[in-house]
């Protein structure tokens, strides 16, 4: 099927807030998940006669389980603070891509069926019946949100549209409107162990090939061990790191770091995926099931530490949710948590981000680097949304901004930040996060990347930046595909550990 034609937005000198163009993205509809995919997930694959009752029942269920949803649907005053904050609105000018309007798609239904004012005076308070049209809007626009949380930074009540999008997708799944892309991936990770669906033997083969490449390249026998019982560290990384460019360059970087530090480590076939698309669908139990594979692998292999590779949403799930979901972490006294805690080394944070680990090793002099090896590069850094706004590194708030930059600056000599309002907590999503990294949403992805492309273009012009480092598998895949549409070379995107890999000194 040929991709739909659309115009690539023009990069301006600064990020413009466009005038509204109603319905500009109403046609963008991601593929529905077919029967086998929905069957595996335990969801229906088409609307039943009672879809409406079923949707409202699910909504009531979620309202009782998630304080975020209940408070966020009540608290919005339509102040408009968020209206110019979403990269999808900035890139598409479709008003339903303004965070508040995206929330209102659900809020109008919430008001109609769950609030006194909406039951009595629907017109007055903008309450609407749940109709097929509303449902289609939900499907289209809850799949034009990357759950990046930029709006939540700017909302005076901290309303996070990601929470509404997740609830929307959960309800849609529940009544038979699942998204093909995310649900297929959730099937693969649960059946095979990773999002790409790479079986164990293929993985072993790849790792052996990489070992040969590294040795040919450096003369040093750097290993990529897998399923090694008794290793100190279990590295859990997005499966894209095994097969995709430029992701694999970072995997080589992790391996070199462990080698140089003399730390025994292992990957796992059972937990060969850090990513967790359960987050995107807002289903707690799915997210828990996917995350549980890592706990199982850690117990099975008897590791003392769990380290996570470069992946944005995976780090959110790992940092913020693993302790809750799987007991990977500290501070609990229930038997479920203690079983794992007694095995883990309390001298390290659990889980630990690979950037925390490498940065500590470089600062303490345990590994040596030569930044001049990267002198051909002028580097900038793209803060990935889930790392920036939904997690931390180190012990201080904001460590998620400082540590990757410290690490980059220790392995390169030329570094420039992009504009302040496009980095740190205000960072713009790459445009492909949250389950949108699929070809059937290419128009959304390209247009959503406009703010980041604009900021990048400015540092390219001003400082001749020729490399944008990032620590997210989705960002890497999205940028290498989408930035060329804006005239950038795809090779200017890569991982932080790709830079480490070049600068590290191996003995």
């Amino acid at each position, binding site marked *: 099927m040929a991709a739909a034609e659309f115009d690539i937005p023009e990069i301006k000198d600064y990020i413009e*807030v466009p*005038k*509204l163009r109603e319905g500009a993205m109403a046609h963008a509809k991601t593929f529905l998940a077919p029967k086998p995919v929905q069957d595996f997930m335990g969801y229906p694959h088409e609307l039943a006669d009672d879809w409406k009752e079923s949707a409202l029942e699910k909504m009531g269920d979620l309202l*009782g*389980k*998630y*304080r*975020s949803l*209940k*408070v*966020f649907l*009540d608290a*919005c*005053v*339509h*102040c*408009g*603070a*968020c*209206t110019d*904050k979403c990269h999808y609105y900035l890139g598409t000018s479709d*008003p339903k891509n*303004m965070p*508040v*309007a995206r929330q209102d798609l659900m809020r109008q239904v919430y008001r109609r069926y769950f*609030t006194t004012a909406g039951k009595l*005076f629907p017109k*007055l*308070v*903008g309450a609407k019946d749940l109709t097929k049209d509303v449902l289609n809007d939900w499907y289209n626009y809850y799949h034009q949100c990357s759950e990046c*949380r930029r709006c939540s*930074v*700017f909302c*005076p*009540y*901290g*309303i*996070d549209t990601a929470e509404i999008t997740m609830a929307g997708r959960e309800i849609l799944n529940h009544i038979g409107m699942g998204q093909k892309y995310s649900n297929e991936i959730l099937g693969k990770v649960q059946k095979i162990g990773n999002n790409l669906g790479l079986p164990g033997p293929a993985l072993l083969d790849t790792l052996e090939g990489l070992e040969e490449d590294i040795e040919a390249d450096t003369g040093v026998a750097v290993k990529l061990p897998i399923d090694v019982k008794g290793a100190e560290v279990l590295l859990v990384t997005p499966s894209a790191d095994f097969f995709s460019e430029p992701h694999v360059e970072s995997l080589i970087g992790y391996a070199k770091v462990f080698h140089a530090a003399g730390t025994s480590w292992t990957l796992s076939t059972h937990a060969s995926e850090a990513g967790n698309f359960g987050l995107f669908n807002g289903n*707690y139990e799915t997210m*828990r099931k996917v995350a549980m594979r890592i706990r199982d692998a850690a117990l099975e292999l008897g590791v003392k530490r769990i380290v996570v590779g470069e992946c944005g949403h995976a780090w959110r799930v790992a*940092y*913020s*949710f693993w*302790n*809750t979901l799987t*007991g990977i*972490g*500290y*501070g*609990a006294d*229930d038997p479920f948590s203690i079983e794992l805690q007694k095995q883990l080394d309390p001298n390290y944070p*659990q*889980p630990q981000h690979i950037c925390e680990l490498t940065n500590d090793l470089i600062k303490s002099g345990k590994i040596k680097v030569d930044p001049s090896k990267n002198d051909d590069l002028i580097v900038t850094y793209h803060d990935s949304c889930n790392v*920036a706004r*939904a997690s*931390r590194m180190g012990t*201080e*708030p904001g460590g*998620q901004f400082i540590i990757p930059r410290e690490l980059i600056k220790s392995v390169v000599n030329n570094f420039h930040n992009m504009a302040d309002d496009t980095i740190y*907590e205000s960072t713009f999503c790459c445009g492909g996060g949250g389950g949108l990294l699929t070809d059937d949403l290419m128009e959304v992805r390209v247009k959503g990347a406009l703010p980041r492309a604009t900021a990048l273009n400015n540092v390219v012009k001003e400082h001749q930046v020729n490399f944008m480092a990032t620590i997210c598998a989705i960002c890497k895949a999205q940028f290498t595909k989408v930035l060329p549409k804006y005239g950038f070379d795809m090779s200017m995107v890569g991982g932080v550990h790709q830079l480490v890999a070049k600068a590290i000194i191996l003995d």
Partner: protein
Amino acid sequence: MSTLTIIYAGLFYIATLLLVVGLAYKIFDYSRTPAPLKIPTTPAPVTQTGVVYRMAKEVVLFESLFKSSKWTWIFGWLFHFGLLLVLARHLRYFTEPVWFWVNIVQPFGKYASIMMVVGLAGLLARRFLVDRVRYISTPSDYLMLVLLIVIGSSGMLMTFVAHTDIVALKTFFMGLMYFDVQPVPQDPILLIHLALVALLMLIFPISKLLHAPGLFFSPTRNQVDNPREHRHVAAWAARLDQKN
């Protein structure tokens, strides 16, 4: 007792009851609904004290709004702090003897009404003038601002132009508080002012005015960033652990 007095006394008893019961129910409902996952918008404080400081900045300075839109922030802040001073000033109609700090606030409260109405007018203008804000505005969004503007300006009219019988008004409200109903002063401006205030109280617990209690329950703002150090599990989620 005049019919008018009975109507106004009844109105304020009902409005107060619904405001208190409605808000208490909402707060109870928010507090019993679990937040199963750690979702603070980061960078977030790593201690409970830090969270109190973050919330204080949100409540007093509207920090997040300041980051997002300076115009909305200026108008919003003028309105809310004008309103706070005006409300403080109004305490003198409900206390005998009047608390000393209310007397101190009194002259400021008088002019704060200007802040309040200017802020509201600015917010209303944004609803008409900014295309994005116009798109998201419902009739109730406009009416809420109009309601507050009419309450504010009718109050200002009585303060600065056509003074009402304050002593009689105080007698009426003190009477309500001690269940000894006294006649309501028959000043049309005052009666409009009071009726609209009662209306505002009535709709508070069923409208977007819930942003006031809501802010304190917002998990993205009130959670401590410590998920690696402390296991956070909701009751319904903890049951899943037992199935393993």
